[in-house]
């Protein structure tokens, strides 16, 4: 009965490097040298986009929301589409660092730092939209429960208020989580840098980290707790964002499937964006040995799964609409697919449901160009998903008399491009000032990092 069981060999997570010092060197290299010309070019592009966005926002502040295309039935359009889009992207980072951590997925180590940074930046981008979409953005602070001269408190029954709490909590917790992960690496950088200014900065930021085992013990416990609370948090945030729609009474919004559907969509869109960023980072900084094809393939598997979950949600929506025998509901969904915005719906279906199907094949799963294109498609598709949900539901609701169309203006598009610019600009700065891959965690998953040679357990 004791026939030898041949276990499948787990793929190595770090390729070709035997030396811990080399790891530090590879990861810290981009922080030490003057950025390359291509970095500057990219930065110039993204920064210009960002500036464009801020100019458009400035004009919106000056003139009013009217410079956008929003109108009476379509009160929300690009603004909230972008908000949900970025919040969705912002879910991948915490998901990778928290949920994959809890599931003992050690392959997360190479990608979690960049993903978490991306989360922070995406949430920053997302946070802009609820602020600027207000008719009177200078009163945005009224959304916080502050005592005021009107003696009115905020309305805790409003999903928008839940958003305020959920997004700010999410931002705060993600930031702390990310920063906590950074502390040992900052200490490493502090210890090796010779630049006096950097030394001071890293010293302050590393909070006196000494890499003592006693500290590690505390650190690991806290990290686990963070992972444990971030997991429900990340699920709750997108659920709450989905409540903006699900708790309303508009056909096409008023759907109980929205929370899981939105979470699945967030994972999907977020992973696609992580993929895009990693492919760039990996190539530019020659991190192929740390961010290996195995990592990318795993990501693609997640993409495939999430894509199918999202596709399932699309189907169920139709089923429910039909099964409910509610004419308004049924119309809302028929209108999505066949109405004047049908093209957006079919872009969404193509990008989100069909394009990831390529990943059934290992050949495509491991092909860098394919995964790059699919990730971009998924990102586009996920943007359109939010557009479809928001605009098609609003533009034709209960009373046909108020049906109308929405057309974006250059300011809508400019602000969206600006948010992309802001996001990539922040990311470009990030890879220049902070280690894009976790140094300490990578060292922990190297071959022979632990006394018993284990890699996969904690």
């Amino acid at each position, binding site marked *: 009965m004791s026939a030898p069981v041949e276990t499948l060999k787990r793929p190595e997570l770090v390729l070709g490097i035997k030396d811990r010092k080399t790891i530090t060197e590879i990861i810290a290299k981009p922080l030490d040298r003057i950025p390359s010309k291509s970095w500057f070019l990219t930065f110039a592009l993204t920064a210009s986009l960002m500036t464009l966005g801020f100019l458009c926002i400035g004009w919106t502040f000056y*003139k*009013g*929301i*009217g410079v956008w*295309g*929003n*109108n*009476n*039935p*379509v*009160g*929300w359009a690009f603004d909230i589409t972008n908000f949900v889009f970025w919040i969705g992207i912002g879910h991948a980072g915490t998901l990778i660092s928290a949920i994959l951590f809890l599931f003992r997925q050690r392959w997360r180590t190479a990608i979690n730092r960049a993903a978490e940074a991306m989360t922070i930046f995406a949430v920053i981008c997302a946070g802009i939209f609820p602020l600027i*979409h*207000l*008719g*009177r*953005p200078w*009163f*945005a602070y*009224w*959304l916080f429960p502050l005592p005021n001269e*009107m003696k*009115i*408190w*905020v*309305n805790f*029954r*409003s*999903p*928008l*208020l839940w958003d*305020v709490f959920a997004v700010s909590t999410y931002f705060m917790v993600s930031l702390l989580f990310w920063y906590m992960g950074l502390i040992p690496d900052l200490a490493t950088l502090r210890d090796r840098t010779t630049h006096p200014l950097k030394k001071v900065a890293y010293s302050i930021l590393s909070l006196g980290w000494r890499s003592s085992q006693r500290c590690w013990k505390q650190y690991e416990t806290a990290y686990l707790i963070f992972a444990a609370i971030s997991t429900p948090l990340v699920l709750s945030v997108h659920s709450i964002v989905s409540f*903006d729609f699900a*708790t*309303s*009474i*508009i056909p096409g919004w008023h759907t109980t499937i929205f929370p899981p559907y939105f979470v699945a969509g967030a994972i999907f869109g977020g992973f696609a964006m992580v993929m895009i960023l990693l492919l760039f980072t990996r190539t530019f900084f020659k991190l192929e040995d740390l961010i290996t094809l195995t990592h990318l393939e795993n990501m693609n598997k997640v993409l495939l799964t999430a894509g199918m979950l999202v596709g399932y949600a699309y189907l169920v929506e139709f089923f429910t609409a039909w099964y409910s025998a509610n*004419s*308004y509901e049924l*119309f809302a969904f028929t209108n999505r697919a066949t109405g004047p915005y049908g093209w957006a719906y079919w872009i969404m279906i193509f990008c989100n449901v069909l394009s990831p199907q390529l990943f059934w094949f290992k050949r495509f799963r491991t092909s860098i160009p394919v995964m790059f294109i699919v990730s971009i498609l998924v990102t586009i598709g996920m943007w359109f998903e939010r557009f479809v949900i928001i605009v098609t539901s*609003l533009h*034709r*609701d*209960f*009373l*046909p*008399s*108020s*049906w*109308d*169309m929405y057309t974006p203006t250059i300011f809508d598009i400019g602000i969206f491009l600006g948010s992309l610019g802001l996001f990539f600009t922040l990311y470009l700065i990030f890879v220049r000032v902070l280690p894009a891959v976790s140094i300490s965690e990578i060292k922990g998953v190297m071959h022979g990092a632990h006394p018993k040679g284990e890699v996969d357990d904690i």
Partner: protein
Amino acid sequence: MEEKDKIYWKSFEELAKDPRTLELAQREFMQEDDGSDFLSLSRRKFLKLLGASVALATTSCRRPVAKILPYVKQAENVKPGIAQYYASTFALNHHSYGILVKTIEGRPIKIEGNPDHPLSQGSAGTWAQASVLELYDPDRKRNPTIGDHVVSWDEWDKEIISLLQKSKNIRFLTESNSSPTFKYTLKKLLKVLPNSHWNPYEPVSQERARLAFKKAFGRPDLPKLHLDKAKIILSINSDFLCSDADSLIHIKNWAKGRKIRSSKDTLNRLYVLESFFSTTGSNADHRLSVKPSQLLSFALELAQILVTRFHLSTDPSHLSLLNTIPDHSEKTVEREFLLALAEDLAQHHGQSVVVVGQQESVELQVVGQFINSLIGSFGPRVGGSTLDSKVSVASFDNGHESLKPLLSELKAGKVDTLITLGGNPVYQLGAEFEALMKKVPNTIRLSLYSDETTAVSKYAAPLSHFLESWGDSRPEDGLVSLIQPTIQPLHNSRSSGEVMISWLYKMSGKASHPTEDWLSEIKLYWKKNIYAKKNTFGSFETFWEGALQDGVVTETLPLSKAFHFNSSALSEAISNFKKTPSDTLELQWTPSPALFDGRFANGGSLQELPDPVTKVTWDNVASMSAKTALKYGLKQGNKIKLSGGASTVTLPVFLQPGLAEDVITTSIGYGRRAGGEIGMGVGSNVFVLGQAWQYKNVQLKKHSGQHKIATTQTHHSMEGRPIVLEATLEEYKKHPDFPKHKIHTPELLSLYQDYPYTGHKWGMAIDLNSCVGCSGCVVACDVENNIPNVGKAQVLKGREMQWLRLDRYYETSSENEVKTLHQPMLCQHCDNAPCETVCPVSATVHSDEGINQMTYNRCVGTRYCANNCPYKVRRFNYFNFNADIETPQELGKNPSVTIRSRGVMEKCTFCIQRISEGKNAAKMRGEKVSDGEIQTACQQACPSQAIVFGDLNDPNSEVSKLSSLSQGYRVLEELNVRPAVTYLAKIRNPHPRLEKRVS
């Protein structure tokens, strides 16, 4: 402590009356003020104005004093913030009705109907409502001018008088004016001036109707129409329910026959035969759309059926005349329609009436009156006939025909002085007249605006608005009403009467005080002609005070006239009748429901008022059926050139169901070239084609380019949703509670306990059966609640701000037959309001009286509430739509309603300011608010009384009673939002045979 004892001071120096400080303080108010430009209204002038208005308000029942009082002196009778109402009269073309002008601190801010005036009975129409905005229009002409020079009135008068005295041939071209004193004074002036003559002119004239009556009955008087006495009504190209000048009273009377309160009630039946799609047609029980050239044949065929089948005429000549008329073959839709109609008309002898549009051909109108004489419309009938044989309405020979002598004189160069008083002949009569006018050596112009006619006149002076001047009006026999000023003229203007009287005085060498002289002229006329016949025992002053207070005086009615139809008129009509080939393209005009004949073109609220049927704003369009468009390869928004003769007009194509093939309809009043910034360049002026109203053989040419048509409604079908519920009278009688069967609503449960509403619980009931869609309520709401206009570009984006809109849905059962449904839609004040729950900052909450309230100050503008509103009645200020308020427009704003700024949401408040006012008044009296005491602006304006507001907690209130009627339902009730607005389902009254054909 009395107000005036308080002295407010800013500094000790001021208190000590240090001269230097006082000078400095005064300098703050000092500005160059030559009175020439009112645009830069200084604060000082503003105060003067306020003072003047107050002074006027206190004395408005007496002579207005010329003294200007500073406001610091508290005027007697004026309580700041308390509205005062003055009875006056709104006159349009030949018609006029009584209004109440609501003034606050001497500023007119709202026009309401005068409940004591029989022609308004407390309601006010679209144009009267909007006239208060016209008063404050910054584009009005402000000073008399000679050429390009601004002059004083004295200089102007001096120049004109010397001119008049030198002139050999003087012609007055005026708009219609039903004022007896105006006519009396003008005649006096004509006598004084050598070789002078008067021509009234209106594009919407009564000329043809008068001629038809003259031919038919030997008398041009137009009898008064009593729609309330009619059971069967046939309208032939008449829009008496909307764009006619006298529609207000007709809507009221028609709606009286459309009220259903129990299953025992009956309804009148409206047949409409028309070549355009009028609001009247949209309310028809049966509507048949035909080409303009075919109307006469239909009318004759109807007469033929009435004579041959129902033997309504004993005159054998009628029979032989009518036998020549070719009729439709049996079983066709047209034939069935006419047969059913004839049957109804014959069965309701004396209770039926045929109304023919006054712009229709004389022949058609003659035939219409022939049918009226057949069906006994002229009586005699106990309880009154549908056409009044005693009372004639005011009418004039004011059309193009009557103008011809003047035109030929102008052509011959005989006229050396042309005085155009009101109206706008250059715009209405086109380039030909403009050229003629340019040839006249002396052109004198009196008008409200610097319009097209002013532009070619040498001497121009501003007319006062009717809210600024004295006047009177006689809209029909036995009724005469007064126009009294409610504000001192805002500009350096005079009323037409003041101008005439000052000429008369000055020519006879007397000193003239125009306002006082004009008032004494009116009083003199009234004393001689009205007071003298009244047989009242009181003094004239008492009589006058009473007339001013009531706004209206009744006179003894003339004797009943006999309406014997003159058969030769019929033979003439038939001999002129030729069956025209029906394959040519025909064009039909209508007056615009918003701008009438273009005189209201500078009213933003009116430009933005959606057409009741097409829902088009800021444009006149070439409406045609989809079939016609297909035939000419046209699509919505394509530009087309239409030519009827020499000139062409470019219009955008608008696809309109319910029009006959090869018919294009459009409205007049657009395409103004001058007369204010708002109206200029909006739409196209179709008057360039001529004055015919109907054109056969119209040439259509596709023009390059696409026109954007701003409609407030882009979807026209109800998509089978139970939004406007309707039934036929028969169905209703079988199932009085049919709405409950149309919406299958499970028992609506709540997780939570309902809020108790222990005090008032405000609610509304809207009777869809009597709402005609005239949109008077929309303008009333605009004015009452300071709703901004957003302009065409914003309407195109779907950002119109009207709190109350009229949804219009079509139901088509066949190509030609379109049923129309009008539904006023406003905030439903849901008890379980979905908008309130989602507002993050508690800016919209529920009051303990059941009102969904909006706190503008608290709103940050997330627009979530609007998204979550199933009725889409919330309006968002995408820009600061009030940024372009220009002096003196601010004076016309309702001070009780906040001006909303950019970035906040707004919506119907159930006129919360009126509720508070009513509650306060009741509290002061120490009583409970009585039912009907508080009226919302829309309710008050509604001529058909389709809107009823009140306390749902009071079981005896009208709104409670209406809300509990069996045909009552709430829109989207199944959502469990619990709206406070109950709609009474529409109940049509089709002819049983015709209805069967459809189903």
